[in-house]
């Protein structure tokens, strides 16, 4: 049987007494797009951090295509791509150099033709030899996505990829996500734009205070509202009863 693209089993992350991720269990099948929603501080980024290696989970197990992210971290990380929430860039390198370096860091022999193709796909070709510090905010965001894709991951995490970007770039990123799905890539994205989840996601998950409140197919989630918008359903969900943090 093919293992799921992602399996989180009772994942916990504590910072002292604060429980950032509280017994989260989630399965994502290959080729799915799952939107992870939740207010600020819900634990979405921490959960993604636990999966991608940025955060050491306090408890629980996480596997990516059957590979334990801690025990088999090398294999697991080669399968995963991450577009982090915060824009980052290395001022010493150009977009082309950044892609070539990231490809090598992910354990693949740097392939210039593929990196140039990615730059072209993200409309960065004409700035490929400029230092990244001279790129606009939108360009830096596109470079982040290109870097996350450079090793052709089978599971991609997009942590608020469209935060603070203009409408045109948002639409182009949506097109890219659809394209990735058509190529078989599994995508888990967090977003505060509910229309983004409605537009792209096969399933929608909602987190609050570290807990996963609900995971449902998009249609089932929308059906909850009986004609109301996803935004209204979301507000109702996150204002439902207070989930206590596990002891």
């Amino acid at each position: 049987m093919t293992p799921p693209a992602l399996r989180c089993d009772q994942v916990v992350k504590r910072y002292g007494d604060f429980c950032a991720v509280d017994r989260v269990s989630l399965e994502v099948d290959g080729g799915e797009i799952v939107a992870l929603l939740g207010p600020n501080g819900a634990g979405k980024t921490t959960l993604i951090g636990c999966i991608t290696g940025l955060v050491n989970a306090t408890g629980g197990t996480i596997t990516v295509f059957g590979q334990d992210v801690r025990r088999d971290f090398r294999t697991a990380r080669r399968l995963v791509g991450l577009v982090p929430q915060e824009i980052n860039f290395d001022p010493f390198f150009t977009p082309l150099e950044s892609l070539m370096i990231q490809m090598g860091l992910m354990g693949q022999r740097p392939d210039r033709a593929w990196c140039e193709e990615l730059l072209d796909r993200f409309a960065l070709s004409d700035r490929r030899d400029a230092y990244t510090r001279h790129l606009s905010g939108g360009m830096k965001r596109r470079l982040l996505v290109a870097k996350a894709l450079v090793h052709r991951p089978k599971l991609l995490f997009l942590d608020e990829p469209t935060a603070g970007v203009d409408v045109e770039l948002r639409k182009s990123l949506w097109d890219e996500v659809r394209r990735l799905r058509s190529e078989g890539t599994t995508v888990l994205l967090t977003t505060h734009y509910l229309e983004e989840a409605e537009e792209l996601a096969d399933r929608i998950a909602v987190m609050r205070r570290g807990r996963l409140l609900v995971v449902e197919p998009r249609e089932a989630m929308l059906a909850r509202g009986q004609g109301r918008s996803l935004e209204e359903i979301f507000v109702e969900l996150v204002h439902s009863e207070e989930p206590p943090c596990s002891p």
Partner: protein
Amino acid sequence: MFAVDWIALRTLLSKEVRRFAKVWSQTVVSPLVSTSLYFLVFGVALGSRLRNVGGVPYMEYVVPGLIMLAMINAAFLNTSSSLFQSKINGTVVDLLVAPIGPFEMLVAYLGAAMLRAFIVGTLVYGVAAAFVGPKLAHPGWTLLFSAAVTASFAALGLISALWAEKFDHLAVVPNFVLTPLTFLGGVFYSVQMLPPPWDTLSRLNPILYMVNGLRYGILGVSDVPPGRALILLLTLLLLILAAVARLLARGYKLRS
């Protein structure tokens, strides 16, 4: 099972080398200029008054210490600034999501820092040779001491960068540890010139053994037995490497 991703290691090493090479005037030329000034002031200006130290003209005597000073700074600054900057600008994420273990990180960061230190050291040696003539009494010892010292300080730079949360923290080790210990470590004088108890106290300073080790390698003279200095340095290096490998494996201040 111990595994190494050689492509990732080579990529990180090459990235670190290119990083300092892109700002060569700051990373290579600047230490060359400052060390040359030391050499001119302490060697040429004062050297004519001091004559011989340990049977060697003072201008020659200060050369190994100045080379060591430059190499220590280059090795420490390369790792500390690179890792700390990547923490501050967020690009450390690129490393943390990569299938890289502590071994690859350690070898790549140390390799680049040692290369920078060797380039700087060779250039300073070249400048000194122009004044006092080329001297290399024991090339093997010179290489061994240089490698052990630069690896130790490159690893210390990594520890400093891991621990630091702001630029002030990063300056603590160079300002309050490295500089005093280096200047009191026999760069400009022989400990035999010091009155008690300073001569004995100086022997507690590990940099004294580094400077004298290189002095033995280049000039063939030393305040301390070179074999003992090398054993001390290698022990120190192993301890530092073990500490930094453990910190990297734990993801100390890298993975929350």
